[in-house]
């Protein structure tokens, strides 16, 4: 899920550290939250949309300029589908 290749030698350390963090945050279970709605945005501000007018964006050349590999103005990745 996290899409992280973690060296096998680091797994025990991560397991131990994450276990302790999860134990700590488990204290939240003791808080009575019956009938309490969740807060996702602290100020309940509705998203403000700008007027839907076309504006110039990055061109193709600029959009791929930061890519580690590019070919003909496209992002280059390893083969996804086998022949």
């Amino acid at each position, binding site marked *: 899920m*996290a899409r992280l290749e973690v*060296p096998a030698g680091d797994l025990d350390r991560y397991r131990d550290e*994450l276990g302790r*963090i999860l134990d700590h945050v488990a204290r*939240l279970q003791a808080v009575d939250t019956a009938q*309490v709605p969740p807060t996702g*945005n602290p100020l309940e*501000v509705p998203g403000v949309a700008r007027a839907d007018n076309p504006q110039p964006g990055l061109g193709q050349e600029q959009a791929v300029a*930061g890519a580690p590999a590019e070919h003909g103005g496209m992002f280059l990745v390893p083969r996804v589908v086998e022949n």
Partner: protein
Amino acid sequence: MTEKLAEWPAHRMHRALVSREVSARELAAAVLRRLDEVERAVGAYVHLREPELVLADADAVDVRLGRGEPLAALGGVPVALKDNMCTRGLPTTCASRILEGFRPAYDATVVERLVGQGALVLGKTNMDEFAMGSSTEHSALGRTRNPWDLGRVPGGSSGGSAAAVAAGEAVVALGSDTGGSIRQPAAFCGVVGLKPTYGRVSRYGLVAFASSLDQIGPLSRDVRDAALTLQAIAGPDPHDATSRPEEPPDFEEALVPDCRGLRLGVPREFYAQGVSAEVRSAVAAAVDLLVEQGADVEECSLPTVAQALDVYYVIAPAEASSNLARFDGVRYGWRAPEPRDYGELFAATRGRGFGAEVQRRIMLGTYALSAGYYDQYYGKAQQVRTLLCREFEQAFERYAALVTPTAPTTAFGIGEKTSDPLTMYMSDVCTVPINLAGLPAISVPCGYTNGLPVGLQVVGRPFGEETVLRVAFALESAADLGRRRPPLLGAQADPV
């Protein structure tokens, strides 16, 4: 006099530029000279612009002054930017290996606004990787040291910005604050740090960490500079749907050097959690000064603050795990060499490109959001967040602002907390509740203990930056701490 120019606040520079007492080139040269002298010891920056480019920008300001054109508050002022703000053509790495070599195609709105005022960008400052940390030790690009004691951390995650301002290597710097990342380093380095209300400043072009918490704000030598810098960067931005549509007020007008008619709350929970005796005593003395300045001070209680750190360490990693999914080795930055397939490209790039703290938070976040655990962790944390927000709302029915320590201790030693993530997280205990509630808060120096600065945090109502600035300004005026300077810089500075 020239050597001390580098330590002037921006508002003094502005006066001297307008009266033609000094030129923008002289100011820029003084700060560049200081940078040359101390940067090797402090390590505040990860990328510096060529000095010739900075001086050329300064010359352009001098030309405009010569033509009698008006000068904006930060025109000709040398500034530093945290390395998670996009700068066109200038490296932006978030102090991470995964963004090695990345040069954005556009400027963040805050950068555009500073440059639009004529501010001189010196470079990009060091930080904890992707702003995850409290000491700047989680940087893949090197170590930043605290100018007050080179054996100690500058705080984090905006540690480079705080250290640069403290050492005179920048006059003003921008930082970002997700759980205290402007205020805690400001406290550790003896400078002013302001986190504006959620929605006050555009985040367009800020590399996102936790989108319901992140805000950009200034680190500065004094409260007036914080007000002027906030003025420069605040206000609506059509590129950020969370930026509020209202135009900001005049923040400098709020700088009244007293607290008459203000009732301030001192919430006891902020003093309960590992706050050192030295910090308690410096903060108590500052509160006494505020009373002398006319404030009516009362102790109060916000019980859910005791759970805020737990709420934060569920919500922030959850949002981070989602935001950081965009770093896939395809569109920007570094890619692991020779991946066999697309899956390996993704996992190997992230596994080797991200440092340990970032990986920990991605794992924590994806776990907290996973189907079987969502309600138990993320859902629960969002509900407790509601309780916390309600308590702040209730407190602000009675109080104009709340005063607390910014951090439980003064700057700690390099390496002291890196072996245990939980111990490191505890240093955010006084600042994370404020981000969860989206409130504005400032850290202002309030004293020194064992030669290290202590910060006082002033917390305001949503969009109540004016009150926050006023209380901080009253304290700054009464405490008269402005002449202290880090030992690194030698003898006492000239009075400003």
